[in-house]
């Protein structure tokens, strides 16, 4: 058994086909006819451009937009004036085109790999791929063709490049093994887009495997078995069938409402961290955004984002979601999230200190700009404002007061906004939970943040290994708090959601249904699995389970029972 990096989920059993790298060695010829050599290089660039644009068009059709853009990026790189000039200069000094190209690409590879930025480091692969294909053209060598591999093939290569995968018949390839690459490399992105299981960075794979050798792989755990036994083959075949069946079942849920087995509909929305994530929400069939964290707008920069900049970001999400609800949480700074230019003092106990709404209500200019941007963006979709870390009722009242003032301003300036905009709170402190009945009378909605609620209820720092065992939403104290908040919200007739990790936990979902949770906010990748779990339970069954849990006094007992009962 060999361990690599699991980069594309799924299981495969098949026969190895090795993709040999083309020999790209060349002779250093002294050039005398400079013009002819420059022309030879230009012709190669032209050929390269034409071939690559062709490949990109195929890629767009067969795989997807992003993958096609990778190839188009190579064309932009090759037509870079700085690169062309440098190659031409070297040829004029008598260097042959191959060597000149090699030198110039090497210079860029050096620059890119030395950068302290992962994204720039990753461009090294692009320069290499571009260089190698350009060299092949200069040397008159054929591209590797993997379009003809037989059914049941596991491809083994040093690296899988976008240009190689063009023309690949995905029904014939059951797995991909490479010697380099990680979860975010081009090869991983391609394998996932093609839905082919892949294990990358398998040590010395090209030295180890032979053509025609049998292998089995697990693209989730990153495991490769060479020459598997009959039992192992049967096991991987069974896993593969099961995996494909589940995937198919989830696919059948796309576009369906989220309903329990007895027909109660709940809302299933997503947590996002940046405006671009909203595309993913639609792609994965999320019904809206249950938590848009706005910290990203404020981090990794040297000054506060302007109202206009924030407005553009919020508007983008609202428009992308096409009228579906978008709950935007106002700035949650402090705790473990630092924003240097706000000059917050270092604290002994940041989680118990100057954080989130406490900062915002004091730094009023900062908060007013954010709230104004949110109000303006509310003209473009169903934006709702959520206040984080509330512990007292007057915090909510103060926010509403500021909103009232801003609305008057906007009225005077005749700027459009949603006059009925909903303002809710994040329930993530024991204080808010205990006050939920009165908060529910003034908040338009609740969203339970289970991560912080667990931390504050159990008085546990989840980063501290000595006490981390206490950090679990299965603790009866946390469950009681959640049940109480939901009951208060239900009673006051306001919607109650949950945006912590617990909302996607298949073991907890029946309890949340029993308590009366209205909205589940999960990561986009968990939407279909969550919809699937919800569909398995009737409210009656869920309530019976909740009744059993009520009598349990420890986390272990709760977790054990939920594990036994999960469907």
């Amino acid at each position, binding site marked *: 058994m060999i361990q690599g990096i699991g980069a594309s989920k799924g299981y495969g059993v098949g026969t190895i086909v090795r993709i040999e790298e083309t020999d790209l060695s060349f002779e250093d010829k002294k050039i005398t006819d400079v013009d002819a050599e420059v022309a030879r290089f230009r012709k190669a660039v032209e050929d390269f451009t034409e071939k690559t644009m062709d490949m990109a068009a195929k890629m767009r059709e067969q795989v997807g937009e992003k993958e096609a853009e990778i190839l188009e*990026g190579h064309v932009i790189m090759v037509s870079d004036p700085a690169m062309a000039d440098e190659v031409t200069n070297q040829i004029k000094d008598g260097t042959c085109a191959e060597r000149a190209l090699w030198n110039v690409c090497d210079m860029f590879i050096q620059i*890119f790999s030395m950068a302290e930025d992962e994204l720039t480091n990753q461009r090294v692969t692009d320069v290499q791929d571009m260089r190698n294909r350009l060299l092949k053209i200069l040397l008159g060598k054929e591209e590797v063709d993997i379009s003809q591999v037989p059914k049941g093939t596991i491809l083994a290569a040093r690296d899988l490049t976008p240009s190689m995968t063009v023309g690949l018949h995905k029904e014939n390839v059951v797995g991909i093994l490479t010697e380099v690459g990680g979860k975010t490399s081009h090869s991983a992105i391609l394998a996932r887009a093609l839905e082919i299981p892949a294990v990358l960075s398998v040590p010395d794979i090209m030295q180890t495997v032979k053509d025609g050798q049998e292998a089995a792989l697990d693209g989730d755990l990153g495991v490769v078995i060479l020459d598997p036994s009959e039992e192992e083959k049967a096991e991987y075949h069974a896993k593969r069938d099961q995996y494909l069946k589940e995937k198919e079942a989830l696919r059948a849920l796309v576009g369906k409402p989220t309903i329990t087995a007895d027909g109660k509909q709940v809302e299933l929305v997503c947590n996002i961290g*940046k405006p671009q994530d909203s595309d993913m929400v639609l792609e994965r069939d999320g019904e809206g955004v249950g938590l848009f964290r706005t910290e990203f707008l404020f981090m990794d920069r040297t*000054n506060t984002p302007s109202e206009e900049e924030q407005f553009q970001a919020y508007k983008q999400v609202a428009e992308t979601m096409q009228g579906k609800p978008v709950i935007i949480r106002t700035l949650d700074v402090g705790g473990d999230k630092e924003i240097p230019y706000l000059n917050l003092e270092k604290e002994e106990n940041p989680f118990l200190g100057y954080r989130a709404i406490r900062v915002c209500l004091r730094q009023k200019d900062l908060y007013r700009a954010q709230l104004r941007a949110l109000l303006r963006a509310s003209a473009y979709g169903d934006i709702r404002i959520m206040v984080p870390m509330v512990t007292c009722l007057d915090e909510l009242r103060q926010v509403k007061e500021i909103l009232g003032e801003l609305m008057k301003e906007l009225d005077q300036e005749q700027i459009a906004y949603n006059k009925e905009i909903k303002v809710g709170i994040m329930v993530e402190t024991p204080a808010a939970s205990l006050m939920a009945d009165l908060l529910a009378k003034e908040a338009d909605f609740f969203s339970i943040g289970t991560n912080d609620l667990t931390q504050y209820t159990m008085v546990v720092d989840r980063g501290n290994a000595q006490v981390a065992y206490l950090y679990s939403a299965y603790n009866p104290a946390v469950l009681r708090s959640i049940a109480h908040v939901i009951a208060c919200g239900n009673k006051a007739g306001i919607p109650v959601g949950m945006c912590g990790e617990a909302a996607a936990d298949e073991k907890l979902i029946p309890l949340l249904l029993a308590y009366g949770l209205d909205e589940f906010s999960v990561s986009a990748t968990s939407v279909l699995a969550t919809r699937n779990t919800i569909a398995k339970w009737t409210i009656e069954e869920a309530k019976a389970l909740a009744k059993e849990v009520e009598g349990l006094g420890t986390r272990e007992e709760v977790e054990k029972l939920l594990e036994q009962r999960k469907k």
Partner: protein
Amino acid sequence: MVTEKFTVKNEQGLHMRPAGVLSKTAAKYPCEVKLNVGDKQINAKSIMMIIGGCIKCGMEVEVVCNGEQETECLAELKELFLSGFGE
């Protein structure tokens, strides 16, 4: 010579796509176009140089256009920076 300073809005900085748009646009004009970022000066017509410059979100970039059609060039680049290169 005309210059103006902008803050990079693109969340992943001037990576492949925005760098491509920037270099293509700069290359349309006959004038020289440079980017001053920190103590680096980068040829804005070269996507490779822009990528190698590692220009991240929130950084300040001074665009310097010098030569024929410098004003038009700066105006078009300004629009790109302000719109986050259409991202």
